[in-house]
């Protein structure tokens, strides 16, 4: 413990230079299983989506138990964020930015619900439940049909209505 907080002498002075930096090399190799347990990210191309599937009807049932108290009937946002609607409002004085009117990628819905929701008990839903909730929210927003099933193939294929309306400020063109 004596060395705690003391930088390795070799690396001092290299920080500002363009030279490759050297640290004390104290990183501990992570085994792939552990990494897999930590890595819950879903990319916009669907990378990271787990096996499983969910329907709109299943999603409606989960929503009623897990989400409705905060996000209101059919995602109307009676207490917290509104999840449905706002289509065509983005040029209005008071735009309503929702999953349906604003979000560019359907995969973000799965990623966000899985990591952050339900607000009081995150990380408690099954992958099937998250697929089902994603399907339900996409259906309420008029983006998929009532009998569409969401899974690792169908979800990244969903084209969001506002997808092409983002201008990348980085890297600047």
């Amino acid at each position, binding site marked *: 413990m004596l*060395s*705690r*907080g*003391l*930088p*390795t002498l070799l*690396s*001092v002075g*290299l*920080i500002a230079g363009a030279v*490759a*930096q*050297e*640290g*004390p*090399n*104290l*990183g*501990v*190799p*992570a085994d*792939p299983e552990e*990494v897999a347990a*930590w*890595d*819950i*990210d*879903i*990319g*916009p191309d669907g990378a990271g989506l787990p096996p499983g599937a969910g329907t709109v009807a299943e999603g409606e049932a989960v929503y009623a138990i897990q989400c409705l108290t*905060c996000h209101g009937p059919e995602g109307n946002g009676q*207490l*917290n964020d509104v999840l449905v609607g706002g289509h065509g409002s*983005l*040029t209005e*004085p008071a*735009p309503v*930015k929702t*999953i349906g009117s*604003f*979000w*560019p*990628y359907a*995969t*973000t819905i799965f*990623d*966000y619900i899985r*990591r*952050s929701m339900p*607000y009081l008990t*995150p*990380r408690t839903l099954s992958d099937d439940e998250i697929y089902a909730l994603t399907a339900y929210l996409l259906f309420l927003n008029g983006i998929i049909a009532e009998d569409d099933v969401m899974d690792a193939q169908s979800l990244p294929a969903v084209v969001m209505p506002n997808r092409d*309306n*983002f*201008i*990348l*400020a*980085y*890297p600047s063109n």
Partner: protein
Amino acid sequence: MSEREPNNLEVVAGNGLLHRRLFLTGGAAALGAGTLGQLTAARAQEPPPWMRIPGAPMTGHGSRARYENHVQRLTMSVPGTDGSGGSRTPIEALEGMITPSGLHFERHHSGVPDIDPDAHRLLIHGLVDRALFFDMDALSRYPMVSRIQFIECSGNSRLTGLAPEPVSGTCGELHGLISCSEWTGVPLSILLDEAGVDPSAHWILAEGADAAAMTRSVPLAKTMDDALVAIYQNGERLRPENGYPARLFLPGYEGNMSVKWLRRIKVTAAPMMTREETSKYTDLLPDGRSLMFTFPMDVKSVITSPSPGLELAGPGLYQISGMAWSGLGRIAMVEVSADGGASWAEAALSEPVLDKAVTRFRMAWRWNGAPAVIMSRAVDETGAVQPTRQSIISAKGTNFMYHYNGIQAWRVDADGRVTNVHV
């Protein structure tokens, strides 16, 4: 006018602005003649009571004077939660460039986690040669750097700037999502080099250990340039609400990207399009399209004193004091106007003037007691000039929500009251 005023006060712009020399020489002492508030301490017992008995004992950890306990962050949370939302720094009550750690603004998406540092690890994985874990003991053995730099939430100031009518509130309530600290930590590039970044990588995803597991994508170039894994704030370990035990710190970039409670960095080829970089932190333009990845915070300034809630005690000499900062570099100049923008004069910048740090500016003003409108305008070393509210709104409308940096005006009434105005 007080007899104690120095006799060489050169008027440099309309309505009583005085040369900044006053602050660069000893002349500022004379400003005591008219500082904010009344200097009418009641004639008290002599010697005062605190000179008649020994004072309090030493303590293991100090706290501020009890007379200062009213200086508080203003907290606001979304309905049904007490940890999703933010708190604002009461910048009208502070001076200098450093924000006391306990008053640093907050913005959380699921409260402040109570993280045991001995159980906390940082994982670096993805497009790297070897995935690595770093615990806090390991991180504290890496070479560190210290920098005084600001963090600003990109939603700062929009409450008043984008509202049709000026919103009433203190300077901190309107503009307090800005704070500046000395941050000390390990350059992220050292850790990424140790993991061995694959040439196909262009971004990282940073994840926090809060209950929202909040994530942001950051360009790899930024992380290799000046990103820190910060462990200390103003000399002590990070405060819990500022990311204890470790946070990402991205100088000059919108605050949300400096992910707190940092526990995972995934090296990726492309941005992950998380909720925070799509649903939030994208800037909606009048034509319905939105700017995405608007990272740096632009040049900005605000007069913190006088400001709403701080009244002027009557005609006389006053110090105008404020903060200026830019996510693009150093502040080059701050100008102040006391006649609603008709004329401007250069303010004194308090040293040190640092890269991407808050710079304190000061200006001497002889208020003649008539209604006045005071404002400040900053220029950074890239030549970027803080724009007017009108020019921002004509270019970007009023729905963009983030990165508002317009000039703020305060109206001083004849009775010394200060209110928010749009000019």
